[in-house]
């Protein structure tokens, strides 16, 4: 009835979109590409693994845990490294290098945990898939339903926060012009902290879904990160709505494109799956560096501006 390909694509798209929202949010406020983010997802993956394989509990208990763990680590990263470096006057390149260093450190930590579980507890800890531990409603797997409901809640609440609350308006002002916002009495540091916490939490949450549908391990952060970068760049890195559109466009094209290629050329084509988001990202950067957001703006300019001008003339 419901083709498994669409399930694959939707679960993957939900995870990628959660992460690309965070990536774009941090880029908008701190002007830093958060390369450590994919590692937070790996932490989420191991949260679910620990819940199911070691403690033998329901995998969904791992979700708030993954969110909190990611959020806490992001807070530590921001206060410990990013904020300190910014105080010393470091540019975006130095911040990027430090984030890559942090990624190495966290990933090595996860590897140590995986080694420990395998050697001491004798549980296979790399390349696991926990599909059997998930619940099912009819023919829909639980992870599909839960992740879809969660992403809708996240998008709606983010939209409401950004447009209806004072904090959201302060956040948008910081994105537009941070020094000016600070002059007007907005606490820019608090807004940065909140954006980092949201990013880390969402990445951890996205990670907890992964092992319930895909084979995952310490390397799954690397495979996910290319899609997240591509989604954010295609979204334009300037608006959260762009990140949402980019996330769905890139991950659906990636899953369906690789499926089509595998059907046409043979199973070997599946290994080159990450070339699809990379190619799309390169094309967007070559022909429209502003991403989907700027394409939409151009269309609006072409078809909607004459009306506005006329209105101004008549009044």
């Amino acid at each position, binding site marked *: 009835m419901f083709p498994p390909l669409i399930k694959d694509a939707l679960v993957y798209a939900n995870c990628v979109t959660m992460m690309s929202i965070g990536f774009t949010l941090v880029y908008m406020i701190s*002007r830093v*590409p958060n390369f450590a983010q994919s590692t937070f997802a790996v932490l989420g993956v191991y949260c679910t693994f620990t819940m199911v394989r070691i403690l033998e509990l329901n995998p969904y208990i791992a979700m708030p845990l993954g969110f909190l763990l990611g959020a806490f680590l992001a807070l530590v990263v921001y206060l410990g490294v990013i904020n300190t470096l910014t105080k010393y006057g470091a540019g975006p*390149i130095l911040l990027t290098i430090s984030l*890559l260093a942090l990624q190495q*450190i966290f990933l090595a930590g996860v590897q140590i945990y995986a*080694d420990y579980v395998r*050697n001491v507890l004798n549980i296979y800890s790399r390349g696991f898939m926990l599909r059997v531990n998930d619940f099912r409603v009819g023919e829909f797997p639980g992870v599909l339903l839960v992740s879809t409901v969660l992403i809708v809640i996240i998008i709606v609440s983010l939209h409401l926060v950004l447009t209806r609350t004072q904090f959201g308006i302060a956040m948008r002002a910081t994105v537009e012009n941070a020094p000016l916002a600070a002059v007007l009495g907005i606490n820019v540091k608090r807004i940065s902290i909140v954006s980092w916490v949201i990013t880390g939490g969402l990445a951890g949450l996205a990670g907890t879904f992964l092992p319930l549908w895909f084979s995952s391990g310490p390397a799954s952060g690397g495979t996910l990160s290319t899609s997240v970068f591509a989604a954010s760049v295609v979204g334009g890195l300037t608006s959260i709505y762009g990140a949402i559109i980019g996330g769905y466009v890139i991950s659906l094209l990636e899953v369906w494109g690789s499926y089509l290629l595998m059907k046409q050329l043979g199973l070997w084509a599946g290994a080159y799956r*990450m*070339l699809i988001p990379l190619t799309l990202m390169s094309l967007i950067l*070559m022909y429209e560096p502003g991403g989907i957001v700027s394409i939409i703006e151009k269309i609006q300019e072409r078809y909607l501006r004459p009306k506005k001008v006329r209105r101004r003339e008549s009044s």
Partner: protein
Amino acid sequence: MMNEFIIQWVIDLIMFFLLYLIVTMNLNFMYGYTGIPHFGISLSVAGGGYVVGALTGRILRWWYNVYPELDFMYENAKITDQINLYLAHDPVTGIGIFLFIIVLSLALNACLGYIVSRPAIRLTGSYLIIVFIGMAEAVRVIGMNYYPLVGGTFWVHVPDAFAWMGSFRREGYLLIAGLFTLFVFLLLQSLSTSPLARVVRAVRENAVSAECVGKDVVGIRTKIVVLCSALTSISGVLYGFYIHAVLSTSYTRATWTFYPWLMFMVGGIGNNMGATVGTFIFITLRRLIIFYKHSIEAYVPFQVQWLEQIMIGIMLLLIIIFRPQGLIPEKPTKMRGVNYEQVEDEMREKGIKIPKQVMQKKTIIQRLLRK
């Protein structure tokens, strides 16, 4: 026995120092001088390695006509063994194939550098970093999955082009690697005092004003990436001939992008001396860690390499926080044919304040001579 072991350890140390030095100097020229944050430098090293792995054996098999009926990848060890027997008495072909592979690798990696930098070279900062990281990952994925290239996740043997050296082979190859490193060093050093270096620094400091005075910023950036990608691939070629094998899984982001970045951040951005010092410190440290690794391996329930990665990551963070300019900071470029003493005297006569940096440039010997 112990003596032999120490000699091998020292030769290994020098060899890896030379290999990494080539990468670090190019990285330094790209980031330190031009301001291109090339976070995918591992793809050039991998590119060099792939050229060696894929072509050396195939060309030599055709040249000597060894087992033309066998599949090159599946019967790799057998074919390479036979080729090595021929090469042991044939220095001309050995040197010829080595030089040919180097030239080929330079040409192919220049093309690869162009393709890789094309999408985002117009843009700066984060976009460039994202594209470079993605491209390096793509090159690695292709090497790991395309079996005929370098044998996928298995390795491919590389014929020993210097087998004719006999017992002197180890030291002789070190000498050749040293010559190539010296060539890269001299080339980059002479470039860094040439007019090109001043243009390149102008591009780094302020691309808009460089464009205003008529410099083709995108063209210069592309040229530098192409040049440095080609030169970096020499490191991959030398590495392949050194260990007689090419293994696609060894060109990871940690070993060939992250460590070189760390090395030249330690040494100092924007000068080749800094890159050299940083590389030497780091390689010595790393070889010592590898040497003593086994003594703690028995006591911990995980692989020690993860601990090493954590240590190196923390080291980099501390350097970035406490000494972002590195051990040897950048100095202003000297122009050839300008008498700086005269300029200084003239400036003093006119009452112009001389910047502190220019004063520091004089060596201690010069100061003593003046007194």
